[in-house]
Every structure is written in C-alpha cells, then in structure tokens.
C-alpha cells in the first residue's frame, strides 16, 4: 500500500473502562478446583461491565469522551466494532449514534467477527475520512465485553472496555503512514453463531504457528511501506494474552523492547476488539510530537498500522491515561456469583417480582426516541422553564404557556440529588435498586435510576448522566436503554445508616 493521504489523521480520542472489578484471586478461589493451572493468572483484577452496561453503553462513554456532543452533531460516519454486539439484526451503531447526538444523515457500519475488528473499523474510518473532502469528522469506536466459560483462561484474562477515535483533516494529532493486512483462516479459537462461549486451541500452537508466523511479515511490510526502520518505533502496540508473545514479536521485527506498550492485563484484562485501540489512546495521551507507533492486532491474519504524531499533539489537553484512570476509579469489587448472574451464567431466583412483564412498546419508544437517546426536555419559549418530559403546556404554575417548547438535552448536564432511596423490595438484576430525584443546572428535574455505587450518595451531591440499559425483557429477548444518574465518585458517601 502506498503512503496514505497526508492530510487525514486522528483528531480526537477517548476511552472507557467500567468501574466494577473481578479480583482474579477470587475467581481462582471459585474455579481453581476445576483447573489448578488458573493459579498462573491469579494476579490483579478484571474490569467488567455492570449489569446495565454493554458494548453499546461503553461505546457511548468512549465517544462522548473523545468529542463534545455538539461536535458529534456534525459527524459524517460512524464505524463500530465489537464481537459482542447485543443485537445481531439491528444496527447497533444506530443506538450509539443517537445517544451521542449524531445526525440522522450518517453512514454507520457494525464491524464484527474477529479479534482485529477494532482495527478494521479504525482503518475504514480513516479511509472514509480521507475520501471525504468535507470538514465533517468520522468516528470509529471499538467496544467489547467478552465472556468466557467459568473456569476458563478467557474468563481470567479478559476485561471490558471501549475506545473511540475521530478522524479529520484539521488539527490532526497523529497521521497514519502505512497500513497492511493479511487474511489467514487460522482458527486459534472460534465462537459459532448463537453459542455463548469460545472454543480455543492450545496456546503454544497459537503462539508458534500463529502469532510468530503470521504477524512478522505484516509488521515488516507495514514498516517498509511507511519508510520507518523498526528501531525508530517508539511505541509497539500488539495485545495478546499469551505471555511473552508481544516481546517475541518486537524482537523478531527488530523493535526495541522498551517500545512494547503496557497492556494493562494486571489492572483490567484484555478487552478483545477494543484493546489495540485502548492501548493506542493511552499511547497518544502521553506521546510527544514526531513519535512513531506500530499498532497491530491478530485475528484470522494480522492488521498493522504505522502512525506518527504531529506537533499538534503537544497542544492537546492531557487526561488521565488508562492505568491512572483505572486505578483512580471507584473500583467496586463484584462477587463472582453476582457476576455470573448478571451475565446469565447462573440461573438465580430473582423472586416473583421478576415475573412482571417488561415489554417495550417499540412504537412508543420510537415516538419518544429523542427523549430517550438524548434526554431531550422542553424549554418554555415564554418563561424559559426547562421541563422533562417536554409538554404542550408549561409546567411552571406562574406561566402555563401553551405551545411548542424548544429542545433542551439534559444528557450532558450536571445535576444534584434532591431525593434518594436505596430499595431492597423492587426488582433489580443488581439489588438494591437506587433511584431518586435529580435537579439539573437548567432547573429541570426528573426521577431517575442511579448507577451502582458502594454507598448511597448524599443529598445535594453532584451526578452526571450515563447511558445505560434501563430494562431487560427476557420474554422477548429485548432490552432498552436510557440515561441514569452516575454519582460523582469523589462526592459519594452520606451519613452512616
């Protein structure tokens, strides 16, 4: 492949790692009796989705971290990768696009079915952007939530996360100098349609016949296309849960071992299709100008990119990198039984209240799609009162204006808690339920569910809204999303009860 259009490149990025943690030594305690070899994976923790998170909600978080919702309103395309999309016949990207406030006139693609799907979405977004002369940006996001059979090594090593990148032509932070891909039907593991879990082959064979044979030619060809010598690579990103593989690949390609990037296996696990892009986001977050990155991933062949950061990166506001962010997070430890129950891996008795029909009216949901996707409230054109839901008659008792109200999205607005309770009676997949009334900065208020926190947050403390699964309908295999209140981690903890 020739050198790509030098105008186009990465203009923004973001990532998301959930707050729940599964301690590996706890998993070992539960499943070590099946396979004592799991003891070799006992260090550290996995970051995993809460019961109301999935690849869609994580993708929304990552994208909204990369770009403001106002900028996202002018996006031309969205490419989303996952091997664990919640829907197999419904454009998952369309859910994410709406929740991020992207326009209807959007090209959107779900990319799936290989561990390198995240890199494929990254490449497609890059190519779409470089073929599009308009100033509109293109987003790619990779999000994954891999579940292994309890007692498997996949269950010990995987983690959940999402990473998002924007491509455009202005204020480019990093350019792609070259890209190469090979496609080989190498079956190190597979998951058949409808199956819950992977079936994998022996690691030693995967390492020797797979990674070490299939990847090096692609890595070297990409470096050659980029005109970059292996020893000039500052950062080498190649995730693998097989120990030592990345270092062996670096050696095989002639890349300095210091260039091998942190894979965060100890603090969160490997996030499947999201992982190469998560590592790239972390790399860019700390990179200086003119640094060269070899980014690659494995899965039925190999896909590789050489990137170079621009002087623009020096002006970028710095955020916490992945390690700092994951370690400063609330880190709620999740008992194994709860984890299994969240994921339908253990059929626990949620009680008679779980029997209530939770059918979603698809017609009502579509009618209220803007309310749900962006929490669109109404702003009275006379008195300015912001109210949810939007109404034909203003709720302000001193106004009562009748007529159209302006749209006012609450999804990105901070709010404070007015009332709250922690409810052990009502049904929840992760009891107790927690909900209360929050009041937004605009004055709008609503009663909302809260995301999980260890303690009940105090009255008047700050929340931000987070896109989560609102309700599951097991009878029809459907679930719907909405926004919940996510307490500010630094402000949680009220009076001891």
């Amino acid at each position, binding site marked *: 492949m020739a050198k790509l259009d030098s105008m186009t490149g990465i203009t923004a990025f973001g990532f998301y790692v959930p707050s729940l943690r599964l301690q590996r030594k706890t998993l070992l305690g539960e499943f070590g009796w099946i396979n004592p070899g799991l003891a070799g994976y006992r260090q550290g923790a996995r970051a995993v989705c809460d019961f109301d998170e999935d690849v869609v909600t994580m993708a929304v978080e990552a994208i909204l971290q990369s770009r403001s919702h106002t900028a996202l309103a002018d996006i031309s395309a969205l490419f989303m990768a996952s091997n664990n999309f919640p829907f197999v016949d419904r454009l998952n990207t369309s859910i994410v696009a709406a929740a991020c406030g992207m326009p209807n006139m959007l090209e959107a693609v779900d990319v799936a079915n290989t561990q390198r799907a995240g890199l494929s979405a990254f490449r497609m977004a890059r190519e779409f952007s470089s073929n599009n002369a308009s100033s509109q940006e293109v987003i790619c996001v990779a999000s994954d939530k891999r579940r292994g059979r309890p007692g498997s090594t996949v269950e010990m090593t995987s983690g959940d996360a999402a990473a998002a990148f924007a491509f455009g032509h202005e204020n480019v932070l990093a350019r792609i100098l070259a890209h190469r891909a090979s496609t080989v039907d190498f079956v190190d593991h597979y998951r058949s349609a409808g199956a819950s879990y992977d079936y994998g082959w022996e690691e030693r064979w995967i390492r020797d016949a797979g990674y070490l044979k299939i990847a090096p030619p692609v890595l070297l060809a990409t470096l050659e296309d980029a005109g970059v010598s292996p020893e000039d690579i500052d950062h080498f990103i190649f995730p693998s849960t097989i120990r030592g593989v990345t270092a062996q690949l670096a050696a095989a390609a002639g890349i300095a071992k210091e260039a091998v990037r942190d894979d965060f296996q100890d603090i969160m696990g490997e996030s499947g299709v999201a992982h190469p892009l998560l590592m790239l986001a972390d790399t860019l977050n700390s990179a200086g100008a003119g640094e060269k990155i070899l980014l690659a991933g494995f899965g039925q062949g190999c896909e590789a990119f050489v990137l170079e950061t621009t002087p623009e990166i020096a002006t970028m506001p710095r955020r916490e990198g992945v390690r700092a962010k994951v370690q400063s997070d609330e880190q709620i430890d999740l008992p194994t039984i709860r984890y299994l129950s969240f994921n339908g891996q253990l059929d626990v008795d949620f009680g008679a209240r779980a029997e209530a*029909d939770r059918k979603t009216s698809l017609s009502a949901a579509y009618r209220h799609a803007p309310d749900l996707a962006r929490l669109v409230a109404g702003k009275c054109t006379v008195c300015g009162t912001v109210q949810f839901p939007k109404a034909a008659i203003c709720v302000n008792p001193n106004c009562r204006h009748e007529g159209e109200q302006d749209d006012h999205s609450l999804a990105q607005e901070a709010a404070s808690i007015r009332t709250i309770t922690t409810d*052990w*009676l009502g049904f929840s997949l992760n009891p107790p339920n927690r909900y209360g009334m929050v009041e937004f900065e605009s004055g709008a208020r*609503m009663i909302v569910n809260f995301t999980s926190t260890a303690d009940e947050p105090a009255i008047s403390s700050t929340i931000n809204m987070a896109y989560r699964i609102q309700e599951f309908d097991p009878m029809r295999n459907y679930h719907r999303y909405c926004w919940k209140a996510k307490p500010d981690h630094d402000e949680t903890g009220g*009076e001891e009860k």
Partner: protein
Amino acid sequence: MTSGIRDKVAIIGMGCSKFGERFDCDAQDLMLEAFFEAREDAGIDTNEIDAAWLGHAMPEQGMGPTATPASVALRLPNIPVTRVENACATGTEALRGAVYAVASGASRMALAIGVEKLKDTGFGGLPEFNFGPRASLYAPSMSAPGGFAQLASAYSAKYAISPSDVKRAMAHISWKSHENGALNPKAHLRRRVEMDTIMKAPMIADPLGLYDCCGVSDGAACAIVTTPEVAASLKQKHDYAMVKALQLAVSNGVEASHCSWDGASIITTRNAAKRAYQEAGIKDPRKELSLVEVHDCFSITELVTMEDLHISGDGSAVEDVLNGFYDRDGGVPCQIDGGLKCFGHPIGASGLRMAYEVYLQLLGRAGERQLDNPSIGLTHNLGGFPHENVSGIGIYGLPGV
C-alpha cells in the same frame, strides 16, 4: 363560591370486613361481609339503594374490570353502578361519588363500597407497577416504599433534622399504630411491637424498615348514604354521622417537573386540606379535630402528612410525634384503629375503612378503643407517589357540630 357538601349528606350505615390475609375468601366475599354489616346498621333493604360506586384499584389481582362484579355479588337491582379507581385514594373516591349523587338529588340512597384482594399474588408487598408504555421508558421501576422513602431524605435536608431523629419519630409512629391495632379485632396486625424491634428491623427502602411499611391486606369497607331528611325519617335507625367535607386534589406535574417542590411535603394534601377545612368550617384543625385517620402507607408519610394537614407546624412533626401528640391519649389521636399500618391496606377499601373508624368513634361504638366524646374526625387518603399523586380528604361529624 360553591356551597360545598357540608351537612348535605348523612352516613346511615357502615360496614367493614376483617382485614388481613384472607386466604379463606374472594373479593366478592369480602364485599358481602362489609355490605351485610352496613345494611343491617342502616336498617334498610337492598332494593332501597338506587346508585352505587365500587372502589377497586387493582382488578387484575381481584375481580377484573368494571363494576359488574359488585352488582352481581350484592345482587343490586340493576341500578347504576360505577367502578372508580384513583390509586390508594380509591375508597375515598367511591364515597365521594355516592355522596355527590345524594347531594345532587339524583340519588335518594347510595352505596359506596371499596374492596381489594391483594393476597392472591403469591408474594409479599404490592405487585410491580406498570406506568404505561411512555413513562416506563425512562422511569425507574419504583416500589411503593421506594417512592415514599425519598420523602425522608428530602425532609431531613429541608429542616436540618438528623436522619436518626427522623427515624426515631418514624418508629414512634409505627409503635403507636401497633399499640392501637392491638385493640382492634378487625385489624390485620394485632401484635404490639417494641421501639427497639422497629428501629432494628430489616431495611426495605432506606430509611424505611419493615415496620415503617403498612400491611398489604385483603379487605372491604362500605358506606350507605342518604339525605339528612331521609336519615331523620328512618324508623329503625336513630344515629348517623354527617359528611362535613370531601375534597380531592391531584398533582399536575409541578412536583415531578418544576423546581418549586422541595420533596419534603405533599402539595396535593396541603391543597385538599385547605379546601376541606374551609368546606367544613374548621379554623384550627389542631384544636378542633377529635381524631384523624391518615394515609400511613409508610411511617414517613404519616409524619409529613401531619404538617400537610396543618396540625403540626412545618418542621415540627418530629417533635409532636415524639411528644405523643398523636398517640391515643394525645391532643389529636391518629390511627386510633391501627391505621394502614396495622388495620391493613386493601387499597380500594382504605378510604372507606378510615371513614368507618371515624363513624364508629362518633357514634360511640368503637369498643375498647373508644375515645371520649369525639365530635369531628378527618380521613386522609393518598394515592400514587409523593411526586405525583391523588390526595383525598374527608371530614365527618355528628349532626349539628
């Protein structure tokens, strides 16, 4: 200015079934139990009733929709029978229909009957609520205790009263109702409970523990109403009570969607109370009311209701409760029959059950729990959640009061 309902309608008969876990019978049987008592009390024949209102809030758990099951069970003579539903204020709503029919002259003698059969669900507590296809898109799946528990956090914050003091007042409220319920043979829960047990009970919805929540019961209650002239002319019936006020206030979205509500009071109760006092000619409820039966679905509801009814000043209900002002020997005895807490809460029957107790007290028929010379009593029924609800208030008194 309307003339109001005061002294236009007389209650000549009332009945109430035994409340509780009535695994022995259907909703229809409960209605008959209440109806036979009321009919005998009034000394009338079924054929004298010319209109009826059925309060039945959860037909899926009970008798199904429409008023037909009541008409069939009671063998009413093909008269107009209307089923009403306004959540936990359903019983008051049924009585309101019957009273207004008599007051308008459309009916000579009307029946109000409320019933609920909640113990055929197979589990404790109320069934899960369905808010319809729109609200359920974004509303939490809120339980009744979870909805009302939020009053506590907002109340503590508003009046800067520590959650532990509020919790203690809540416990006193439940303790008092258990003391009262123990004296009531028709009550669901008749066991006295120690303060310490209440305080340490398992949490249902923070800060509401098990004893902060009322009983979920089966039961029915009913009233037969007529004009004062007919009441005075009845040969077999010599004592009766008068309706002094019936008011209803319903939320209009302000609590849920406008920043003017503080979450620590019930706006509708305040409005209904104001109108009811005016209708009944009550100027100082703290001094004039002989007793009150309020909607103590949860202890915190009773606490804020005392302020919403203007009996306790804002922020002073905790003190009044802890000082025993609402105990049976206090200034205004509250829940002398045990309340929803211990008499039980068959939703559609509750408003009528409250009126039944006031009626018995006024006529001196309350047995062991009889108060000294009560002359006027108030009932308060609250349906829904603090942020969106229906509040019904009835005031009943002796003729001439």
